[in-house]
C-alpha cells in the first residue's frame, strides 16, 4: 500500500463522490472570486457616485454596479447552504466506501496489532470519524486555496493599476507565507511532548474522581497529595502549552503586522497617486478595503488553516501507517469457511506442537520454550500451571492469532497455516457480548443453517431456557444497550450464551479458557462440568490453574516456564510425585479433615 498524504484527501473524496466533490470545488472557487468582483464593483460604484455628484446626473452604470453588488451578496449567502449539503453528501459517500473499507481493513489486521496498546490507540485515532476527517481535510485544503485566490485577486487588480506595487507586495508576502507554513509543523511536533504530561494528569483526575477508585481513595486517603501533584503538573503543562500558543499568536500577529506594514507602504504610494488623479477615488477606496480585509484574513484564517492542514498531514501519516499494516492471511469470508468447516470436522485427527518457541512481538522474554505436545482426536486434555506459565499463549497460537513462532504446529501432520480455523471452537474468559439478538449471538451469522430444534436443544443444554422464557421477544430479544428496546443480561447469563455459541459449533476441537479468577469456585466448577457435558464426543482442551476442575481429563499437561514439565493422567501424575502432585496436594491440603489450624501448612 502506498503512502497517503493530505493531498490524497482530494483523490479519496473524488473517488467516493466525484459529482458532489466537483460541484463543491466549483462553488468554493466562485466564492473565492466574490471579494475580487466586489472590490471592482465597489470601485465602479463610488466612481459613478463621485462623477454623478460632480455632474448631478445619475446614469445606468450606477444601477449596474448596484445590481452586481446585490447579486454577489445573494450568491454568497445562498451558496452557503448548498456547500453545507454537499459536504454532507460527500461524508455519506465516504462512509459507504472509504470508511467501510477502513473498518474491513482493521478487522483483518494481524491480531498482535490489537494487543499492542500503542498500535491499538493509533487505530482507534485513525478510525474514529474517519469519513469526517477526510471530508474536513478536503474542505480545509480548499479553504487554503480560497484564501490564496482572494489575495491573488486583490493583487491582480492592483497589478492593473500600479503593477510594480503588486510585485512588491508579492515579494514581501511569499516569504512570510512560507515561514508560517513551516512553523505550523514545528508547533505540531512540540505539542507531542506535552501530551504525556496531559495523559498523566487525566489519569490523576481519574484516580481522584473515578468510581473504581472510591474504596481505596476513601480508606487510604491519598487524595490531598495527588491533588497537589495534579495541580502542579497541570500548571506545568499549561505553562508549556501557553508558551507554544504565545509563539503561535506572535507568529499570527506578526503576520498581520507584516500585512499592515505592507498596506502602509502601499498607502504611502497610493495616496499621492490618487491625489494626483492617476488612481480613481473609487479604486483607491475599494483597494484599501480589500487590503484591510486581508489583514483580518491573515490574522485568523490563514494561520488557522495552515495549522489544520499540518494537523491533517499528521492524521494522514497515521492513516497510511494503518493502511500498510499487514493483514491476517487466513481470514476468509463467511461462505467459504462455512463450507469447509464440515470437511475439517470430518478429518481432524491430531494437533501437535513440535519444539515451539514463541515471544510476543516487541518483547524480549520467550513465553514458550521448545514446547512439544500432541493431541489426539476424541480425548479430553487439560493444561495446568502457574500464572504466566504460557497456558493462554498456547490457546492463542492454536487459534492462529500469532502466526510467527519458531518450530512447528501441525494439524493431522500438516502445517496449521494450511488450515482454516473452522475446526476449533473456544469459550474465552472474556467472552464476547455482541449487540445482536440472543439467537444471533449464538448462531453468529449462521442463522439459516441452524434448525430451530437444534438451537432450542442447545439453549436447554446450557441452562439458558429459563432466561429466554423470561425475555419478552424470546430468542429474538436484542441484547446490549444499542437499540431502545434492547436489554442486558447478567454476567452469568452471558457466560451461558458463550457456552451455547460453542455448543452449537460443529467444530471437533473445543477449548475452554480459564474462567475469571474472581469467580466463586463452586460456580466455576459448574461451568467446567457444563462445558464437559456439551462437549461429549469432541476433543476438549481445558485451561485451568484449579487442579480439581480438570482432574477427570484423560491427559494433563503441566506447563511450567513455557514448556511441558509433566504429562499424563491424574493418577499417573500423582504417582510420579513431581510438580503436579506438589500442586495438587498444596490445594487438596486445605480440605483435609484430619489436619487443623494453620501451623502445619508449611511442612509439606
Amino acid at each position, binding site marked *: 500500500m502506498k503512502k497517503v498524504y493530505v493531498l490524497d484527501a482530494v483523490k479519496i473524496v473524488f473517488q467516493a463522490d466525484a459529482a458532489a466533490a466537483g460541484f463543491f470545488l466549483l462553488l468554493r472557487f466562485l466564492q473565492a472570486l466574490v471579494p475580487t468582483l466586489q472590490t471592482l464593483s*465597489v470601485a465602479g460604484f463610488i466612481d459613478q457616485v463621485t462623477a454623478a455628484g460632480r455632474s448631478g446626473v445619475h446614469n445606468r452604470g450606477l444601477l449596474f454596479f448596484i445590481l452586481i*453588488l446585490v447579486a454577489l451578496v445573494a450568491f454568497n449567502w445562498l451558496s452557503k447552504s448548498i456547500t453545507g449539503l454537499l459536504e454532507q453528501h460527500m461524508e455519506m459517500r465516504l462512509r459507504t466506501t472509504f470508511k467501510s473499507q477502513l*473498518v474491513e481493513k482493521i478487522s483483518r489486521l494481524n*491480531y498482535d496489532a490489537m494487543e499492542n496498546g500503542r498500535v491499538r490507540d493509533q487505530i482507534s485515532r485513525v478510525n474514529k470519524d474517519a469519513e469526517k476527517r477526510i471530508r474536513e481535510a478536503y474542505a480545509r485544503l480548499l479553504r487554503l486555496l480560497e484564501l490564496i485566490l482572494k489575495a491573488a485577486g486583490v493583487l491582480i487588480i492592483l497589478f492593473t493599476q500600479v503593477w510594480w506595487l503588486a510585485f512588491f507586495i508579492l515579494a514581501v508576502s511569499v516569504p512570510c507565507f512560507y515561514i508560517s507554513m513551516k512553523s505550523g509543523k514545528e508547533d505540531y511536533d512540540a505539542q507531542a511532548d506535552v501530551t504525556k504530561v496531559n495523559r498523566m494528569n487525566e489519569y490523576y483526575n481519574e484516580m481522584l474522581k473515578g468510581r473504581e477508585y472510591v474504596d*481505596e481513595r476513601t480508606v487510604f486517603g491519598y487524595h490531598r497529595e495527588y491533588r497537589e501533584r495534579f495541580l502542579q503538573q497541570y500548571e506545568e503543562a499549561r505553562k508549556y502549552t501557553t508558551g507554544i500558543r504565545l509563539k503561535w499568536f506572535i507568529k499570527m500577529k506578526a503576520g498581520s503586522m507584516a500585512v499592515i506594514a505592507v498596506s502602509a507602504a502601499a498607502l504611502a504610494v497610493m495616496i499621492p497617486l490618487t491625489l494626483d488623479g492617476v488612481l480613481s477615488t473609487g479604486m483607491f477606496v475599494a483597494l484599501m478595503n480589500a487590503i484591510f480585509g486581508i489583514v483580518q484574513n491573515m490574522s485568523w484564517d490563514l494561520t488557522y488553516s495552515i495549522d489544520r492542514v499540518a494537523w491533517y498531514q499528521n492524521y494522514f501519516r497515521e492513516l497510511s501507517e494503518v493502511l500498510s499494516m499487514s493483514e491476517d492471511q487466513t481470514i476468509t469470508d463467511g461462505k467459504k469457511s462455512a463450507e469447509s468447516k464440515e470437511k475439517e470436522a470430518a478429518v481432524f485427527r491430531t494437533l501437535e506442537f513440535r519444539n515451539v518457541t514463541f515471544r510476543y512481538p516487541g518483547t524480549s522474554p520467550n513465553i514458550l520454550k521448545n514446547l512439544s505436545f500432541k493431541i489426539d482426536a476424541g480425548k479430553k486434555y487439560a493444561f495446568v500451571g502457574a500464572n504466566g506459565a504460557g497456558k493462554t499463549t498456547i490457546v492463542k497460537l492454536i487459534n492462529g492469532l500469532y502466526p510467527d513462532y519458531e518450530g512447528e504446529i501441525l494439524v493431522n501432520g500438516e502445517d496449521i497455516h494450511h488450515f482454516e480455523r473452522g475446526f476449533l471452537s473456544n469459550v474465552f474468559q472474556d467472552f464476547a457480548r455482541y449487540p445482536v439478538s440472543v439467537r444471533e449471538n449464538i448462531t453468529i451469522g449462521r442463522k439459516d443453517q441452524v434448525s430451530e430444534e437444534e438451537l432450542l436443544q442447545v439453549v436447554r443444554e446450557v441452562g439458558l431456557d429459563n432466561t429466554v422464557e423470561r425475555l419478552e421477544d424470546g430468542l429474538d430479544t436484542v441484547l446490549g444497550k444499542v437499540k431502545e428496546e434492547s436489554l442486558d443480561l447478567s454476567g452469568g447469563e452471558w457466560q451461558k450464551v458463550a457456552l451455547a455459541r460453542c455448543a452449537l459449533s460443529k467444530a471437533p476441537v473445543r477449548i475452554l479458557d480459564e474462567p475469571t479468577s474472581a469467580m466463586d469456585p463452586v460456580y466455576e466448577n459448574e461451568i467446567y462440568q457444563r462445558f464437559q457435558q456439551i462437549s461429549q464426543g469432541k476433543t476438549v482442551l481445558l485451561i485451568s490453574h484449579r487442579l480439581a476442575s480438570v482432574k477427570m481429563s484423560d491427559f494433563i499437561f503441566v506447563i511450567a516456564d513455557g514448556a511441558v514439565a509433566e504429562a499424563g493422567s491424574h493418577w499417573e501424575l500423582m504417582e510420579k510425585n513431581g510438580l503436579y502432585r506438589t500442586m495438587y496436594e498444596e490445594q487438596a491440603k486445605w480440605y483435609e479433615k484430619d489436619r487443623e489450624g494453620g501451623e502445619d501448612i508449611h511442612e509439606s
Partner: protein
Amino acid sequence: MNRNFFQTFRKAYPLVYKPVWKENLLLSFVDIFHGLSFAAVVILTQRFFDSISEGIAGTAARKEVIIAAAALIACQIVSQLLNGFVNFYADVVREKGYGRICVLLQEKVSRLRPVDFEKNSFLTNLEMADQGAKDACEMVDTANSVITFYVPYFMLMGIYMVRLDWGLLSALLLVFLPVLFTNLVKMHFGDRIERQIAPVRREAEAYERPLTTLENYRETRVLGAAWYFLRLYREAVGKWNQTAWKYRKREAAINLGLNCFSFLAYGGILLLLVSGCVRGDISVGAFAAVFSSIDVMFLLMEEIFRDSLGCLSQNMGRVNNFLNLMESPESRQVSVEMKNGTISFDDVSFRYPEAETDCLKHVSFRIADGETVAVVGENGAGKTTLARILLGVYPADSGSVTIGGVVLDEKTNCFHSVSAVFQKFNRYKLSLEENVRISDLHSTENWEETLRKVDSGWKTDFQADAQTVLSRDFDGVDLSGGQWQKIAIARGIYKKSKILLLDEPTSAIDPIQESRLYQTFLRAAEGRTCVIITHRLGLAKIADRVIVLKEGKVVENGSHKELLERGGEYSRMWEAQAGWYLS
C-alpha cells in the same frame, strides 16, 4: 436537581470567576478597548476616505490626508495587538481557571459519600461534571466577553451610525434580527435532527465495535465472524445514510430559507447605504467604511448568539450536572484514632441505593482485638458490602457499628486505623514504590521490606525497580494479574493499622504461591485484628473463627472445627469444595 438558566448561571458564575478574579478583571479591562478599537477602525476608515476625497477636491491639504492615514494604520495596529492579547489571554485565564475548578471538584469528590457512587443519577453527574466544569468556564467566558467586547463594539457602532444617518439605525436591527432568528430556528431543528439520526448512527457504531476494538476482537477473529459483522455494519451504514440524507436535505432547505432571510437583510443594509450615498446623505467614505464592516457585524453578532445559545441549549445540562455534584451531601469527615481493634456489629442492615432488597439483613457479630476472623459465603452473599461497612466506607442504614470502642456516626470515620486489600484493588499507573506506599504516604516504613514479605524475589519477578511505572501507557511495564495482587497485598499491609481487612486476597494467584501467602497473612495479622473474606474455605481454616454469610444474613459463627461438626451451611460448602480433591 434541575435549575433554570438564571439559577445555573448565578450559581456557576462566582464559582468559576473567583479563583482567577484578578486575571478576569485584567482581561475584561483590555477587552473593552478591544471592542472599541474594532469600531474605531471603521470610524477612522471613514475619516481617511473622506479626507482623500477632500484632498482630490482640493479642500484638504496633503498633510491632513497623511495624518488620517497614519491614524488609521495606528488604530489597525492597536486593534490587532489587542485582538492578539485578548484571544491569547482569554485562553490563559480559562485554562488557569479550569485547573482550579478541577481541583475544587476533586476535593469535593473526596468528601462525597462513597455509597453514592452506586447511584445511577450520581454517576451521571460525576461523568458529566468534568465537561460541565469546562462548560461553566466557557459560559463565564462568553458572558464576560459579551459585556466587555460585543456590547461596547455595537454601542460605538450604533452611536457612529446614528450620527451618520438616523436611517442606519435600522441597519443594526437588520443585523440583529436575522442572526437571532436563524440561531433560534437552528437550535430548534438542529437538536431534533440530531436526535432522529442518533439511533441509526449508534447502531452502526455498535456493529463496528466488534471489528475495530479490542473488546471482542479476539472472539470475532476466531469465530470468523468478521464478515457477518461487516455485513451488519454495511447495512446499518446504509440505513444511517438514508436517514441522515432525508434530514440533511430538510436541514439544507431550512438553511436556504434562513439564508434568504439574511440575504434580504444584508441587501436591505446595502440599499440603505447606497441610497444614502447616492442622495448625498452620507459621504462616499462613510459608505465604504460601513459597507466593509457589514460582514464583521454579521460575524460578531453570529458569535454572540451561537456561543450564548450554545451555552443555553446543550451545555446548560452539563453545567447543571457539575453544580449538582458540587452540592451533593458529604460524608464522615472527622477522623478518630481507635484505641484497639475490636469490631462490633449490632443489628446492621444495609441496602444499596436504587436496590429493591436489603443486601445485609440484621447482621450482628463481635470480633475481639487481635482476632483473625474469616467471612465466607457464596457470590452475592454480601461479603464485600460487609467489608465496606466494617471499614466505614459505607454507613449502615440501621443498627450500629462500633470500631475500637467508637461508634461510627454520620461525622466520624475510622480510616486512620484500618487498612485493606480490596477484591477490586486498584492498579495505579504509578511507580512501583508509589503503588505500595499510596496506602500511607506519610509513613517512613521501608516499603521494600513489606513487598519482600509478600514476594521475596520481586525484583527479578517483576522485572521492575522502585521507579518503574507499572503501565505501558507511561513507558513502564505491564504486570500480570497475580503480580498485581501481590502489590495490592503489600499495599494493604504497608499501612499501619489496628484492623486489616483482606477481601479475596489470593483470587489471581496460583495455588503454590497461595499457600505461601497465607503465611504472610498470618504474620501481617500479628498485633492487629484481621478479617479475611474468601470463598476458598481452605483459607478460612487458618482463621480463629469463621462467620458464614448467606443472602445477607449471618447464618453461622464459630471455629472451623465447630462449624464442620455442626453440619450446616459451612460444612455443606466445605464438602462441595473438598469433594473435588477426594479420590
